[in-house]
């Protein structure tokens, strides 16, 4: 593809090697902050603040991970309850568990609702379908703050404030436009003849959906679920505004690693690294559907 770019590069004496070098340089620039963050998590304080920065030749220490995951609690029993100078407890397992519960719960809820709706939108057109889709898309436009302020009062009144269920519902809502539109595009890929043939043979609509179409769309369902999981996992402002003390997910708690003697960068980076590595693995697994997911199903790879 794009012969002309190759031509131009070749024509001016720039060759494939140049393209490779430039491509890798760009990849390196975009990867550098991630690499830097990982090194912060395994550096000692004196190396974190060194200038010129120590990118490769630093002392490796996993004490930040031990504190964040509570390993030091088991290894050094006498340290139990001890806090670092400046105060602050960096034991983050409960927050990791909160994050996982919320991401799994909201993904499940969003998928359940969206698969039903997307199948229907794909197979049984309704009057004003375009407007209905436009409405779903408009939900995607709402600034989180504009939803979170009224939800704060509603949640206070109905007791969902500071609960896992409350955050699960709001994250599911946040992911619904993505999930519905994306699942519709996956269902649209499956020929409608399958449904019609089965219906003519006397199968019920639900049977067709559950036993024929869902198994065929399983790859798309997995990709959609992964994206929902990641967007819930990384979400910040809803959790910030709709929780108080009961639970905090990783993105929110990792911005609060500030003690009276400064910011605990190594612990923060350890938690941040632990939070992004699973997301990296997930996203590489569904890379094939990534562009379709990012564009809510409208651009296919």
């Amino acid at each position, binding site marked *: 593809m794009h012969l002309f770019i190759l031509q131009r590069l070749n024509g001016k004496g720039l060759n494939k090697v140049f393209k490779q070098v430039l491509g890798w340089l760009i990849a390196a620039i975009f990867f550098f902050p991630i690499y830097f963050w990982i090194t912060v998590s395994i550096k000692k304080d004196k190396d974190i603040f060194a200038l010129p920065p120590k990118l490769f030749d630093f002392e490796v220490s996993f004490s930040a991970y031990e504190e964040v995951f509570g390993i030091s609690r088991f290894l050094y029993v006498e340290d139990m309850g001890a806090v670092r100078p400046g105060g602050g407890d960096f034991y983050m397992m409960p927050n990791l568990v909160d994050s996982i519960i919320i991401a799994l719960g909201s993904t499940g809820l969003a998928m359940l609702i969206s698969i039903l709706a997307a199948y229907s939108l794909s197979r049984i057109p309704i009057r004003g379908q375009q407007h209905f889709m436009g409405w779903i898309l408009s939900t995607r436009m709402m600034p989180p703050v504009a939803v979170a302020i009224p939800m704060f009062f509603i949640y206070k009144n109905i007791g969902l404030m500071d609960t896992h269920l409350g955050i699960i519902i709001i994250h599911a809502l946040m992911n619904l436009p993505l999930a519905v539109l994306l699942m519709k595009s996956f269902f649209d890929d499956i020929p409608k003849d399958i449904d019609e043939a089965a219906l003519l043979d006397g199968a*019920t609509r639900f049977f067709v959906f559950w036993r024929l179409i869902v198994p065929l769309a399983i790859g798309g369902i997995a990709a959609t679920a992964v994206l929902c999981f990641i967007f819930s996992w990384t979400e910040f402002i809803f959790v910030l505004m709709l929780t108080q003390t009961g639970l905090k997910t990783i993105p929110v708690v*990792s911005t609060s690693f500030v003690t009276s003697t400064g910011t605990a960068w190594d612990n923060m980076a350890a938690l941040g690294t632990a939070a992004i590595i699973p997301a990296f693995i997930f996203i590489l697994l569904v890379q094939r559907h990534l562009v379709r997911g990012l564009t809510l199903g409208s651009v296919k790879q």
Partner: protein
Amino acid sequence: MSSQKSYSLPSFMNSDSSLPWLLPLITMLIVFAIIPFFYNIYLSFHEFVPAKRALLFVGWDNWIRLFTDGVFWGSLKVSLYYTFMCLLIQLVLGMGIALLIDSDDPGFGIIRSILTLTLVIPPAIAGMIFLIMEDANYGLIPWLLKSIGLIGPEDTILSDPTLALWGVMIVDIWQWTPFMVLILVAGLRSLPSEPFESAVIDGARPFQVFRRLTLPMLHKVIAVAVLIRGIDLWRMVDYVFVLTSGGPGTATYTLSLYSWQRFTFVQWGYGATISLFSLIVILIVGNAFIHFAKVKW
């Protein structure tokens, strides 16, 4: 089609009516999207009065305050500047990188994979990554800029009124340029090759081909990418929250951050008014864009 009708069963999930299938979605959207919207309107005509410890009706006061509040106009300007500049930079940069790495040569698949990684980092954590890299005392970026003489030895980024917003924008550009790249690469790969081959045979120059062929053929893909990225840029709050909290002074308040900040100051009605304004703007602009750019789902 008429013969098919007799096979549709009257029971709940088996009917050919779409209502049961859509009901959970519609319920969810009404309860958690429509009700908050009207609640926001309700809040924008009320305000918490500390002396009476109650939310009281204040008429148009919040809206009058909105249009006479210098900080609000400042935050609107920041939001617009942030959205347009980031969108422009990400689109141009993204297109350049996409043209470069749209190749089947070995290695480019890995490069594309590396570029997907920034997309799944929680924005709050991306903010933290740049917070340490832009730190005034031991940050990598100010140190680099100072050693090549771009900023003075005493200058800082995040506490400088003119540079702070760029200090925030650089995070957005870093994290989301790959979003543009991946979408544009997918668009480039789906183009048919015949028009390009004949253009090259006709001796068209690369830039002409790009402007006359590539851009028009990518129109839909670009429109979708701009729409989705534009919405998210307008809603952005994580980066400013983490990096500057709106400072120095009010230099990096976006609409969302200002609204959140008023809310935490127990000016609930005013906070809701600002967020409602931001919501109405994006609904109008977004839907107008969908209409005029002919984006279809």
